[in-house]
């Protein structure tokens, strides 16, 4: 009963203040989008990236040519035959069909592997940052151990020993690339766990699980999202490296694999190597630019740097 006057007292000035800023109060997502839009390079990169993804989804059925089928004389250079705009590879397969089909595999593996590594990294980083003490010590030592293993060699070993299926390749990439996410998540948790709103939820009876996933994690997300976007890029690069070395599912085409299988002949027909490389390069470049844009949008404080 005695509480009532104080609440009305506090809300009184608020209603007065609402007059002006009520139009400006917008969803945080819209605000981030506004920030993102100001970075023109990031915006262009996002558009190109969306186009690449659309091409990966509907491209194969739209273009309709089987990337494994030998359709024309090998090493037909680009532009010579209008039916095969980008030319043919060492087995006479249509290079454009291969690149479109490769986009699907590269992007799916990139997304899935990034998801695996973000999942592992966030879990380990969150537990280390939240519980501190010996848990943190043990988990960070574990993380350091993974930083010592040469990433590509370790994935090569996993794929070589346990078979080159798509899930195994995804796992092999995810298991070696989570350390950066773990470090960032831990640092954010160490910072946020000391803030007052966390103490407040703890005082109101929130359990560890709720505090970690319901209170701290949502506030730690911005740098994790930026890092995750970059992870997709590095996972695609990583997959390209593995498939360049021949560690890939033989039943699918991926960008790295096109380069790897044509490598022997590249001094005579360099376009079979150059063109799929351009696809990887443009995709990664766009992802990096979008990552930069996300960084601007989600960490406005860092913008002055």
């Amino acid at each position, binding site marked *: 009963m005695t509480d009532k006057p104080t609440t009305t007292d506090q809300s009184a000035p608020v209603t007065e203040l609402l007059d002006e800023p009520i139009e400006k109060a917008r969803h945080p997502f819209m605000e981030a989008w506004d920030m993102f839009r100001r970075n023109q390079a990031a915006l262009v990169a996002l558009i190109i990236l969306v186009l690449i993804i659309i091409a990966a989804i509907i491209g194969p059925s739209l273009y309709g040519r089987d990337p494994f089928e030998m359709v024309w004389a090998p090493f037909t250079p680009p532009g010579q035959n209008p039916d095969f705009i980008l030319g043919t590879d060492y087995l006479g397969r249509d290079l454009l069909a291969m690149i479109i089909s490769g986009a699907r595999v590269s992007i799916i593996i990139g997304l899935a592997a990034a998801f695996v590594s973000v999942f592992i990294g966030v879990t380990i980083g969150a537990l280390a940052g939240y519980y501190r003490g010996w848990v943190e010590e043990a988990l960070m030592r574990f993380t350091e151990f993974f930083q*010592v293993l*040469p990433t590509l*060699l370790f994935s*090569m070993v996993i794929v070589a020993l346990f078979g080159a299926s798509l899930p195994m390749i995804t796992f092999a990439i995810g298991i070696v690339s989570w350390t950066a996410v773990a470090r960032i998540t831990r640092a954010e948790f160490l910072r946020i766990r000391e803030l007052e709103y966390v103490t407040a939820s703890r005082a109101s009876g929130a359990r560890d699980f709720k505090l970690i996933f319901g209170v701290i994690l949502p506030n730690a997300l911005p740098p994790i999202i930026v890092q995750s976007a970059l992870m997709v890029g590095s996972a695609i690069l990583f997959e390209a490296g593995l498939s360049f*070395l021949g560690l890939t599912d033989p039943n699918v085409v991926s960008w*790295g694999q096109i*380069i790897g299988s044509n490598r022997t002949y*590249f001094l005579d027909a360099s376009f079979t190597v*150059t063109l799929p490389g351009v696809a990887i*390069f443009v995709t990664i470049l766009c992802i990096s630019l979008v990552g930069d844009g996300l960084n601007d949008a989600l960490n406005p404080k860092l913008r002055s740097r």
Partner: protein
Amino acid sequence: MNFLRVTITRMAYAALLLVAVLILNFTLMHLAPGDVADTIAQSAGGIDAEALEQIRREYGLDQPFIVQLGGYIGRVLQFDLGYSFFYSRPVTDLILDRLPATLLLVIAAQILALTVGVVFGVISARKPNGIFSHFVTLASLVGYSAPVFWTGLLMLVMFSLILPWFPVAGMRDVTIENGNIFIHTVDVARHLVLPMVTLASIFVALYSRLSRASMIEVLGSDYVRTAKAKGLKSNQVVYKHALKNAISPVITLAGLQLSAIVSGAVLVETVFSWPGLGTLAFQSIIARDTPTILGILFFSSLVVIVGNQVTDLVLRLVDPRVGSKK
């Protein structure tokens, strides 16, 4: 005294990491389908089940996991990493043959990347909005986004095919028979240029970005303003006073990148047929030569661990605060 104690603690920790790598190695070998007995059986063209059991007993493969693990660690400590049935040689010999080439490539690339990266970073930090600064930002984005094996192949097309400046593959010209040390050194250096530049290109981006940011921060600090107020020349302030402080985060990052550099070396070596651990890994993976693959994983982790120790030492020499803080 303190310096010594820190060094010993770090080395003990490094040894622990190494044992952890061994345990992982062995577990992988254990989990993988097929064992040594199967490999022998395969190379002998098939043996009956009883002989297979016999081999398993001889190699101790019927022992419990822990006993086998202990035996494995004991053998590795005696530099015995097993026998490669594909190359018909002990794995340790194979690896020691290839290790110098990888070390040469990795160290040369790291030094090149650090030098170019720091120089780029410092120059662009002095004029953060100048043309050169924008160029560095753009170049580092490009360097980061290009797959390293693709960069390598483009380099070959550019500088071996179109402009025949450098050799296409390998580390030595086999036609040079009785040259002196000088001729051989020049020969290896000529072969080294393209792989080194290719491998360095990924890391120049990272180092120049960080040293730019770090330098901008240091240049804004009070002691730099004091040094300038004393009337020192701008170059003297930047390269003598500021650089010393700005460089330690870059060295830390360089240490963290070691495992990535060793990984990149695998791809670069494959592209340029550089006779190092990377090409060995590539060949033994095609040949399904498990002992060699795991031996390479062990040795390259060793390279990273030793490299981390060296980085640590350099860091503590450059910045005395680092050791005493912990």
